[in-house]
């Protein structure tokens, strides 16, 4: 890749840049700043599309009363039950149980607070069914 060909397709890094290796006019390797490359942007936004559709599917199930609000926070933080169990210091089956609306409602306040801390939110928020969801919420 020539230095003059280093792509500048801004998307992923915001105002930040990454550096990549390119060849200058004398054939020497230099570090060149790049604001991104279209194929990498496409692949990345595809990964976010998957996350978004997962969160939307979970939200629909929460509204249908099949899942507890915890499932929403888990999905938007790109976690599965196993990963969340790691953060919560619980067994996987315990987290799976808390994903059901009934058991989640009867959780002790201290356990709800623990989940809230993991997701950087409050116990009130985490027990409420979220009404709107934007992918930008996830990416912030």
């Amino acid at each position: 890749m020539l230095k003059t060909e280093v792509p500048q397709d801004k998307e992923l890094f915001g105002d930040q840049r990454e550096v990549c290796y390119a060849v200058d006019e004398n054939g020497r390797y230099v570090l060149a700043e790049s604001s991104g490359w279209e194929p990498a942007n496409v692949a990345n936004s595809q990964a976010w599309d998957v996350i978004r559709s997962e969160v939307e599917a979970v939200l629909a199930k929460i509204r249908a009363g099949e899942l507890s609000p915890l499932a929403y926070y888990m999905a938007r933080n790109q976690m599965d039950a196993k990963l969340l169990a790691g953060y919560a210091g619980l067994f996987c089956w315990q987290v799976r149980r808390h994903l059901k609306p009934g058991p989640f409602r009867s959780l002790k306040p201290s356990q709800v607070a623990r989940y809230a801390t993991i997701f950087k939110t409050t116990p009130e928020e985490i027990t409420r069914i979220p009404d709107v969801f934007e992918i930008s919420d996830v990416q912030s």
Partner: protein
Amino acid sequence: MNPAFPHRQTAHCESGVIANLLTYHGLPLSEAMAFGIGGGLFFGYLPFIRINGLPLTTFRTTPGGIFNRVTKRLGIGVTSSTFKDQSRAMAELDLLLRMGIPVGMQTGVYWLPYFPPALRFHFNAHNLIAYGKEGDNYLISDPVIGEPVVCAAADLVRARFAQGALAPKGKMYCITAVPKNIDLAPAIREGIREVCRVMVSVPFPLIGTWGIRYLANQVERWPARLGEKRAILYLGNLIRMQEEIGTGGAGFRFIFAAFLQESAAVLGNSNFLEMSQRMTGIGDVWREFALAGARHCKGRAEQSGDFTDLARILRRCAELENGFFRELSSLVRKP
């Protein structure tokens, strides 16, 4: 308490951290050099390891491998420790920083507040350096970020104790001794020998150039086996592994070419210059693959035979790299 740290932005986090740490300790080393001596280049297609349900493709060696091999090959003293207790992990970090020693750490990227939001996934093999503390904030030199940044203690704890695959467990390391008069040449040869070995001489079908060929065969079958939608997910994941932040372009092929160019000067052998140019050409073919693949992900590809075309590009990479590494290994063969 707050020493000036020579922050340089680099393409890859692990080679960047070690290059910056060694430069601080009086051994100026480029990232490419660290990457090459550490034998960083690799290829592996490991479908039995799933990340978010997608098969793992890697263009680099195991996390921590570059660091271990660079320090071993250059005879550099290091200490490294992991922790069970979070407050102890932070206390030990503070202690070292008070003594003015910059500390490297393995972290997850998901909880790092300064990281570009679009890149925040649960990836746990990131590396960064803390070089000072102001109040409750740490001064961080993150090699993939342009400028030194500040990170609150609460966020750093989260990042150091991220959970999941490759959990860092608070891992931190620092350099204790750098020998005088280091001769890079033997370390360079050893690094190259190792990369050649894993790329062409390991008789295992999923790694090295064999792995690239295997991947090509798989890519060709993806649409029939997985259906068009899932095949495109697999393809997008592959492109991300190759091009997303930290690879320096073309799945580390350009960093390696830069390393070969630098090595030509150290070893006084112009053959490596020519090899560097060839590696650049191979990197360009990988970029071609990413470009064609992304076009397909966007749905711009018309004919259904497209995955066959992608496989053809991969086979060309395999063939080129096979010839390349065989020749390269003859240049560094032990006398």
